[in-house]
């Protein structure tokens, strides 16, 4: 298959075939990370800029490791230590990075659509590492990779995503992605955290978490940001954990081979009980491992595409 996307902006702009191709490529990349010498030369001489306007541990280190395992040169920019803190606009900063011949710019930004703005104006490939509450395509791809690995398929599975859907780009990208791949997506959370019209993305909505968990193959819990209490989205952590948190008792309603996922960072004891820290059904660390593989695959595919564009 010919993969010719300059940018990875969201899951909605990827076809089923492209998603499957990315996951297949990621499966191969995963093997590289398991070798004693974890490095291949396929992106030697390529420059990858990690441009993070928002704090991130997992995603940034995952991209950084992915770039290095493919021999690309990666540099990291954080908003706080760059000229952004001097008031330079997003588009100006990005144009300067392009002028230094960055092949791929990986961007995380608190404003939805920021990667689209860059993609529309820059020749460098753009990979969205999370924009506002819009999309987190690499997270959705690593989640799909993990589910496919554990279940052998995506089609026909029941995926329950639970928590603060309204503020979650992970949820949006996963709803779109799992839907595209033929899974059934159900959502649950307090009505304050269910965004208006979310059914249009292709998901059933429950306010009762038990009904969402019922018969699920996958239960994905989302992080609750404690400062949301100030916006009146929930009452207390105690009540949230009791009514909307996942525990082993509640999980009995799911299929017996259910897997439990979480994009991290986890608030143990709030959205998910600490019982799952060591539980065999919990695949939270597998997600992290697959994250590196998915990002290796995307860097390879996008840098490959920009390389072709240069020689055309």
């Amino acid at each position: 298959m010919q993969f010719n996307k300059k940018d990875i902006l969201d899951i909605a702009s990827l076809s089923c075939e492209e998603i499957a191709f990315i996951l297949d490529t990621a499966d191969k990349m995963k093997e590289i990370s398991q070798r004693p010498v974890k490095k291949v030369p396929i992106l030697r001489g390529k420059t990858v800029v990690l441009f993070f306007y928002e704090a991130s541990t997992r995603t940034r280190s995952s991209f950084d490791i992915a770039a290095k395992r493919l021999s690309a040169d990666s540099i990291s920019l954080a908003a706080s230590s760059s000229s952004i803190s001097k008031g330079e606009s997003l588009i100006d900063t990005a144009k300067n990075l392009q002028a230094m011949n960055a092949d791929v710019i990986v961007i995380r930004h608190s404003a939805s659509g920021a990667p689209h703005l860059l993609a529309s104006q820059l020749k460098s490939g753009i990979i969205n590492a999370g924009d506002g509450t819009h999309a987190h395509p690499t997270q959705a791809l690593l989640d799909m990779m993990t589910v496919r690995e554990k279940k052998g398929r995506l089609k026909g599975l029941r995926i329950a995503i639970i928590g603060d859907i309204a503020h979650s780009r992970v949820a949006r990208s996963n709803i779109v992605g799992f839907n595209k791949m033929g899974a059934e997506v159900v959502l649950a959370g307090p009505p304050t955290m269910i965004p208006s019209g979310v059914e249009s993305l292709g998901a059933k909505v429950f306010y009762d978490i038990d009904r969402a968990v019922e018969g699920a193959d996958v239960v994905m819990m989302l992080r609750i940001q404690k400062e949301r209490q100030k916006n009146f989205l929930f009452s207390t952590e105690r009540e949230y954990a009791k009514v909307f948190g996942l525990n082993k008792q509640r999980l009995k309603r799911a299929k017996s081979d259910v897997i439990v996922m979480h994009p991290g960072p986890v608030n143990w004891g709030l959205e998910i009980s600490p019982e799952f820290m060591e539980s065999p059904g919990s695949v939270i660390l597998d997600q992290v491992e697959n994250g590196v593989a998915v990002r290796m695959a995307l860097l390879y595919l996008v840098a490959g595409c920009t390389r072709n564009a240069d020689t055309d």
Partner: protein
Amino acid sequence: MRILISGGRVIDPASGVDEIADVLIEDGIVQSAKCKVQSDSTSHFSLLTSHCIDASGKLVVPGLIDMHVHLREPGHEYKETIQSGCAAAAAGGFTAVCAMPNTHPVNDNRQITEYILNKAKDAGLSRVYPVGAISKGLSGERLSEYGELKDAGVLAISDDGKPVINSRLMRRAMEYAKAFDLLIISHCEDLELATGGVMNEGALATQMGLAGIPNAVESIMVMRDIALCELTGARLHIAHVSTAESVRAIREAKKRGCPVTAETAPHYFMLTEDAVTGYNTHAKMNPPLRSEKDREAIREGLADGTIDAIVTDHAPHSLLEKDTEFDAAANGIIGLETSLGLSLKLVEQGVLSLNTLIEKMSINPARILGVPMGLTVGNPADITIIDPDMAWTVNSEKFRSLSRNTPFNGWELKGQAVYTIVGGKICTT
């Protein structure tokens, strides 16, 4: 100096005129608005006039008035000046515009009002009616000096761009304004409910990950202000109506006899939130573009008289404020040079008659503001001549406005002002 506008279709809803006729202007005043068509070009009229405009096939209407414009001067002259804004107005067929007070400094005092009026006089194009601030500095904390503002030439007061949050202050503003017969123009928005919102709330906002603004943000305040209007008996005008619920509330209030009037803008009857797709910052405004259901309701409100006026909410912004992340982009679009062409679509689509459209773009704004209305003999000769058949393509590069922020660039429109005459002076070529 005499100007004869001959052979055009003269439409003046103020006096019930709609016929082929000549209009004679003498010394800046309408001399005759229904004189007989002079078929003979050597008639005495032609001989005596210093300027003759052949308006055959054209519409000759009372000058269009845009009640809601941001001219940006003083303070943001890189976005628009009074000169460039008036040039844009004249190009768009507007003989008068209301200049909103959210300039820097705010127009909450005599000096700024006089500054604006002097600049407008220097520009010598469309008339400018300055709008004063309801509260000093638009702070929502204390009243501006309405007596001074009125004396300096203000016809209306508004904190536009911001709602008056404090209901007690709004009540007192309405009461106090009665002493000076000032119109209150209200920007209706519940800021707490709107917190963080950047577009219409709904499925599209959810898909795009943008924070939504529900319709209730507007209608809650529309209903509050109607209640205060009924309490005080002040003249209340609701700015930029965008939702079905607001239209309904205003319709019911008018039925009860409440002295409320309302306006909407072309973008609210031409576009829906779909224009935001692709994070298009030229479709970001406040209130936001709404759903199809709201767009329909706005059209119904225009058709049944609930909405009195069509305005532009002309809000110039430079590329700096628009070529950014959607969340960070400034609200607002320019409209003076596209409003007439877009509004004429309402006639083409059977929503309004041509007469009703002229009412909403000239007669009603004049009545609401209390300025001379229609082509009555003795009125200042503010006249717009429209070629209703001229097809043209919106090209923002050619705008007289200093700014380019329009979602209508590239649109094919029909109908354009060919002459804008202000006080007998031709302000367009």
